């Protein structure tokens, strides 16, 4: 197991370096000089040259990259030239909101997806199975911004049950906080459950053909016990990987959902930075999100290896 972790970590390192390089290159090579952006109206050639010199923008690109990487490794991602806030501070302020949103969404997705998958697998090919599978397929064509609009229209505009936008911190008003999170999390969950359902259902169907399930049936165990106790755990392996793969989609979805529902998370920080051309924040947030994403995938890989010994010995 230790060898597996070391191997994966050694692979992670070049990926992370390449990610930082790509992030830096996107921010540096493309048009839109930072000095012009900062100076705005006062961008005379002299001012720009002076500022470029102060910021080190006149130095060769590989030198700037190394300097930037050095700062990043010391935890200094720079600060916004608009608000003066450091990147780390801005991210730390907003991270809890995004994490709460994604956790709630994943939980709701599992609550919808897992029972449906089990019931469908129990009677694969039946009427209920066909309806649910069809709905799941249809839901794959409903992006989050569509379901968000639909949910806002139903629950906020027509029924006045839930707020459409807004946020209170969890520490101030837990109930109010959850009320603000219901619609955004449900929006994301609507995009998550079809994937969960499809994967678990197909694994469950193959598990249910195993001999030990036949034995359990022959022993006269209750069908619900067979499904939930005997078949669920061995069938949930792929679900773990898919959850890992889906994190990227979840982050993208959270970005849109935060914007629509005005939740002050990482997504809104990023979009705000794009609209105000706050390039330092943008560069820092993209790097942190990508690094976090890589690490989460690493954790999912480890989890998968814990669950299935074949992976760590490379026989998968």
């Amino acid at each position, binding site marked *: 197991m230790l060898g597996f972790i070391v191997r994966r970590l050694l692979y992670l390192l070049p990926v992370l370096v390449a*990610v930082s390089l790509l992030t830096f290159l996107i921010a540096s090579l493309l*048009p839109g000089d930072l000095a012009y952006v900062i100076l705005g109206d006062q961008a005379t050639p002299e001012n720009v040259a002076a500022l470029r010199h102060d910021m080190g923008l006149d130095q060769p690109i590989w030198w700037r990259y190394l300097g930037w990487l050095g700062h990043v490794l010391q935890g200094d991602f720079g600060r916004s030239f608009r608000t003066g806030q450091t990147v780390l501070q801005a991210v730390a302020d907003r991270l809890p909101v995004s994490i709460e949103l994604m956790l709630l969404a994943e939980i709701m997705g599992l609550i919808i997806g897992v029972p449906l998958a089990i019931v469908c697998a129990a009677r694969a090919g039946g009427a209920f199975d066909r309806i649910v599978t069809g709905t799941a397929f249809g839901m794959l064509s409903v992006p989050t911004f569509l379901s968000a609009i639909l949910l806002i229209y139903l629950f906020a505009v027509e029924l006045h049950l839930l707020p459409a936008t807004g946020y209170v911190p969890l520490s101030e008003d837990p109930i109010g906080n959850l009320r603000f999170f219901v619609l955004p999390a449900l929006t994301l969950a609507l995009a998550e459950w079809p994937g969960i359902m499809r994967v678990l259902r197909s694994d469950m169907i193959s598990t249910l053909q195993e001999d030990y399930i036949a034995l359990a049936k022959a022993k006269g165990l209750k069908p619900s016990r067979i499904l939930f106790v005997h078949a669920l755990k061995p069938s949930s392996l792929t679900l773990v990987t*898919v959850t890992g793969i889906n994190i*990227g989609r979840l982050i993208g979805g959270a970005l849109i959902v935060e914007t629509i529902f005005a939740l002050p998370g990482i997504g809104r920080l990023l979009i705000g930075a*794009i*609209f105000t051309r706050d390039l330092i924040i943008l560069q820092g947030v*993209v790097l942190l999100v990508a690094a976090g*994403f890589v690490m989460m995938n690493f954790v999912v890989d480890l989890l998968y290896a814990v669950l299935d010994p074949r992976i760590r010995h490379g026989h998968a």
Partner: protein
Amino acid sequence: MATLDLGMEDDIGAAPAPRSRQLGLLFWIAIGWMALVFALALFAPLLPLPSPTDMDMLERRAPFSAAHWLGTDGLGRDELARLIHGARISLAVGLFAPVIGLVIGGALGMLAGYFRGRLETLVVGSMDVLLAFPPLVLALAVTAYLGQSILNLTLILGVLGIPAFMRVARAATLTLARREFVIAAEALGATHRRILLRELLPNVLLPLVAFFLLGVAVTIVAEGALSFLGLGVPPPVASWGSMIGEGRESLDVAPRLAFLPAFAFFLTVLSFNLVGDSLKAVTDPRQGAL
């Protein structure tokens, strides 16, 4: 959702239900809808439609009428004309971007799967770097720097699709390269080039084309999401995503302004998914009983 993780969950585990190889009625309805949207988008300039960008402040959010079949939007622009012109953008980006992924990703995947070794490590590794970014985040960051235009949008979404096409091509090549007809060609002394182009390409192309249609659906969704956020096509150009985004402002007074483009959007994405999925089931090399 709106990201470029193209149907990876389908690569894992057994095929869900035994799927019949016949293409059902739904398949042909989807083809019909696609053809209709295509024709409308293609011939939009020839159709007797009002301009999609002319504003009429006296006719804001007008209901359905003979002059404006689907009413007007918040700035008095003809909704039907905007819908049809929006289809042009969604389809143009949705079709051209996956071509980039298909060509580059397909070629890389075939080379990696055929030659193996260092080349494969390098290709797979560089794709991992691209996959290390949540796709929408990368697309947003690059559009922010490059500036908003239809060309930039197409290029970015195209590049983001490369890893997925690479995987499909590589997986198919790996399976096919062990088959008898390839071994026979090698034994006959065929060059690498001949084997790749004449033996492998025709067989790899089938799953790639099926995957291409799914790629179109994913790209249309991604374009819609970016335009919805106001970071896709620059206004006043109509795209379904930006129309839905603008319609959101008037959900309480005129919900149809969001729901009309949303419905067209949903049907189109669903059609591409349906057709792509059906073709994928038919062309999957693993199921080929030879």
